[in-house]
């Protein structure tokens, strides 16, 4: 498993340099742009899409076949991707939390937690939807689903009014409470993990 995570790290380091630069620019911009949701959410959106790009590279380089001959179970291969999602998402969440903390704390505590929970939900939900589709169909055939989800998430980040988010923590009847959002996303992510393992076990390589 450590070998698979190291491989993901090398791949991300090599292919995602532009991505890291974009994340940093958006994070800085989000601090000064007075709560523009797109700027706040974008780093997490692209981070959550990272494993999909890595899976495409795996197929392109025939790593998926080569790896199937190594002493890894298919569950481990899938799990490495999900753990990488969690680690990269957590890193972005922490950096975003610092950035938003500078902007909102100590006065806007409720808004801060609403944004963080939404970021967490976004970071978990994108991969939770896309990864099983890719493990079932392969990255080429899953590309349409990929674009639909990216489009939907970006549209959501644009549409969501800043006031609406700030009300998220204060109006739990109309908008689910931050904890509930996180819980649902985590459950979705766990179900997706199990489903991807099942799909990948049956996949021809």
């Amino acid at each position, binding site marked *: 498993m450590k*070998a698979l995570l*190291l*491989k993901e790290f090398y791949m991300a380091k090599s292919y995602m340099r532009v991505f890291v630069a974009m994340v940093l620019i958006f994070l800085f911009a989000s601090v000064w742009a007075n709560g523009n949701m797109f700027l706040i959410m974008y780093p997490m959106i692209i981070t959550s899409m990272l494993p999909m790009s890595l899976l495409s590279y795996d197929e392109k*380089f025939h*790593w998926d*076949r080569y790896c199937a001959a190594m*002493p890894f179970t298919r569950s481990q291969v899938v799990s490495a991707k999900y753990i990488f999602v969690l680690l990269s998402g957590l890193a972005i969440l922490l950096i975003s939390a610092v950035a938003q903390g500078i902007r909102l704390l100590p006065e806007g505590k409720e808004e801060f937690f609403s944004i963080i929970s939404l970021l967490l939900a976004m970071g978990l939900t994108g991969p939770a939807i896309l990864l099983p589709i890719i493990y079932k169909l392969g990255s080429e055939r899953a590309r349409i689903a990929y674009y639909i989800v990216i489009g939907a998430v970006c549209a959501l980040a644009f549409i969501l009014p800043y006031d609406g988010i700030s009300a998220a923590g204060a109006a739990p009847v109309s908008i689910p409470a931050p904890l509930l959002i996180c819980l649902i996303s985590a459950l979705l992510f766990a179900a997706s993990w199990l489903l991807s393992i099942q799909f990948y076990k049956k996949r021809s390589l």
Partner: protein
Amino acid sequence: MNAIEIRQLRKSYPGFDLGPLDLDLPQGCIMGLIGENGAGKTTTIRLILDMLQRDGGSIRLLGRGDGEDVMLTREETGVVLDEVGFPECFNTRQVNNVMRLTYKNWDEAAYREYLRRFDLPEGKQFKDFSRGMKMKLGIAVALSHRPKLLILDEPTSGLDPVVRDEVVELFSEFTRDESHSILISSHIVSDLEKLCDYIAFLHKGRLLLCEEKDLLLSEYCILRCTAAELNALPKKTVKGGKENPYGVTAIVRRDAAPAGANTSPISIEELFVFMVKEA
């Protein structure tokens, strides 16, 4: 013990059926899998490596059947596929770091020695390697975790004749240990003829023949004669033949060739081409 034991292996795709296939690779031996494009060599190898789900049959590797110590079997099996499979951003150092964590028996010193022997640069990225260099790196990795069984899909393709010869020598060295075995597929039949103890011919998903190489070479010969002379031989002793302006060139059992007839030794390539044309 057999390193590979395949019984009634079957796999069907639309327009292509593999098998039923029965194949034994005795431990300590090298078996060459020969077949034209689309004959089913890669499918067979992918089924052996459990990359594809088979439709029927059984496969035992290193004496272990389905689901028995799968991880140990993979530890003990070195694999080189037709597309080597490293991410293109990797250099040989990163390959070493990943493989060190992958295989319990990873031998870093052996890996470095193979890199030196194959003249592979340490810092260069895989994407900048030629096809031959990529293949050599794949072979270096396959040999560096001290496997007992090597499964190689077209490992000499893309290599120049000098390196091919070196690689063939390396594989011969590997099987000097009697517990080591190799299954190798290749289009380059001359390499297999040099290297293999057993030869298996695959044609359109069917196994035409699986025999000891020396037995095949001693059992058959090329006979040059007239059509009438060939027709006089028992049908089952003739593997195939073709007419030319000077008569007939045929492959026949050596013991069936008439005394004093114009015969010459046969190569594996000639035998394969004749058999495929007759099939």
